[in-house]
């Protein structure tokens, strides 16, 4: 029965090999050439399981989707054969689709830029403190360890108009209640806020690591030359940290583009379509409306957009790292 036993064997193998090493006689002289020969395929062999599994979870589904994206489906979700590029033209002329692209991009840009700015500020503030900061650091980064679903649930409670603590606090200082999730712009802002809460800590953590790894000399030299704090940050810290900031940017952007869990729990895309991210729209068209062709075509377009954005960002990362 499958994997566990294989696993056990694997462990045994390792143990066996570990013990067996003493017994194996391997004459030194004919060593090298033989090794090179046997090693020729070894790197690929080692990669094989990983690549196979990756193919199963990515390439197969993508090919499947590709086929589906050229097929039509009736109301009941039965395939009605190939319909050419109908699905693609439907997607590209669909208002909801462009709205979702807009929502997703705006959401990504807003939340990622704020997260990085805040994370950068915070990292600069704690970078000097030594060991004492370690536990504090752990506290600060708890949010990013949590399931986005759980985070969304907690914020759904806190943002509730009637029994939410945030509205209670607003009222107790004499402000009117705010219907956070019931108005388009506020719901969008709430979503950004929740994302910042959860992921600002990650930007903070990455940038902090970068800061601590920077050499001291340029800073000391600048201080001797009488540079202000702002100048130091502007002309020394930021340029030197650029590669690290870009790493944070790449990772956060890729994640923000696929935001789903929070939308699922907090707004279900509403009010109107103000918070409908692309992931949520595609989920809705496929699972609720059984429009698999439409969803697959949309997903392909999304996939292309994601790949373009990520490749650009990774290029940026590689060039900046090569320089740095």
């Amino acid at each position: 029965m499958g994997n566990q036993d294989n696993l056990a064997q694997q462990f045994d193998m390792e143990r066996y090999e570990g013990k067996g090493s003493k017994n194996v006689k391997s004459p030194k002289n004919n060593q090298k050439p033989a090794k090179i020969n046997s090693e020729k395929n070894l790197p690929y062999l080692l990669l094989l399981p990983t690549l196979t599994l990756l193919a199963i979870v990515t390439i197969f589904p993508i090919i499947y989707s590709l086929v589906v994206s050229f097929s039509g489906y009736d109301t009941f979700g039965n395939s009605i054969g190939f319909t050419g590029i109908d699905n693609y033209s439907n997607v590209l002329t669909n208002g909801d689709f462009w709205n979702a692209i807009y929502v997703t991009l705006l959401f990504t840009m807003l939340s990622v830029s704020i997260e990085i700015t805040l994370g950068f500020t915070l990292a600069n503030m704690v970078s000097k403190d030594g060991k004492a900061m370690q536990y504090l650091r752990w506290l600060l980064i708890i949010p990013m360890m949590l399931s986005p679903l759980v985070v969304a649930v907690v914020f759904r409670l806190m943002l509730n108009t009637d029994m939410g603590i945030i509205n209670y606090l607003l009222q107790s200082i004499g402000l009117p209640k705010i219907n956070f999730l019931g108005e388009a712009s506020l719901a969008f802002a709430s979503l950004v806020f929740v994302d910042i809460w959860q992921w600002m800590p990650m930007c903070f953590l990455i940038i902090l690591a970068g800061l601590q790894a920077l050499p001291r000399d340029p800073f000391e030299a600048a201080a001797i030359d009488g540079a202000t704090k702002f100048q130091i940050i502007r002309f020394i810290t930021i340029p030197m940290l650029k590669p690290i900031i870009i790493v944070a940017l790449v990772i956060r952007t890729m994640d923000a583009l696929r935001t789903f869990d929070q939308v699922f729990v907090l707004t279900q895309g509403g009010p109107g379509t103000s918070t409908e991210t692309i992931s949520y729209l595609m989920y809705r068209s496929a699972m609720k409306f059984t429009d698999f062709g439409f969803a697959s075509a949309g997903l392909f377009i999304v996939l292309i957009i994601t790949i373009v954005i990520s490749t650009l960002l990774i290029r940026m990362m590689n060039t900046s790292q090569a320089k740095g």
Partner: protein
Amino acid sequence: MSKFKNTVARGELGSTIFRYVFLVGSILFVLFPLYWMVITSLKTEGELFAKAQTFFPKELTWEHYFDPVNGIFASGSAFPQFFINSMIVSFVSMILCLVIGAYAAYSLARFKMKNNRSEKISFLILTARMLPPIVVVIPMYLIMQQLGLINTHWAMLIVYTGFNLPFVVWMLKAFFEEIPEELEESAMIDGASRMKSFHIIVLPLVLPGFVATSIFTLILTWNEFMFAMFLLNSTNMMTLPAGISTFITQYETNWGALTAAATISIIPVLIFSFIAQKHLVRGMTMGAVKG
């Protein structure tokens, strides 16, 4: 001169105060929602929905946890099963990831392939990490259905192992690259094969890296929601996030039980991350940044 020094000192003091205010503010900002979650789970039903919210429950209650009928640990409750399922899926998938990923990572870190191929493969693996899960989840549902694996933990293991492999490979690769190659070479000169030297020389040296990687894999799996929601369709197979999402009902949300479930569900993650805190940065950046 002395005057100048004074202003500097005052400025320092000002910025120190600002720093601490900002820091304390950030900590409150981060911790308050968590505090609120825990405290809500300990409030009585009456207090929960009262007009005046309380920052500390007037009357602490464990009813949302241990009430024999409505608590999340009651005998009829599905919550303990969610927890066990999450444990099974995350730990087994973690082991699979490590075993499979370690060899790939070692291969990419050590062997020079023709035409820069190893870098190309590394990049290919990385692109899998960029794939939005929504792109594959629907076809995956249909494929798993055909394989008869829908609603089994096998499906979850395949998906989670597959999707966490890029992360594991990249992170372990970074750890392997830190081990000087001379160590293996000297072992090989002594007659060990390449793989043997990998197993007995390299692996023990990257143990800390393995621990860190494993913990991150655990956290990623523990928190995953989308696949779990699509691929598991009976309550007794569900993992925590999918299970918790079923607590939000159409007519009435039981916030007490919901926050209690959320609280319990994050405890393992807190423990994991505490153990791995030294390696947090590296984990989060797939080895791209050393922490």
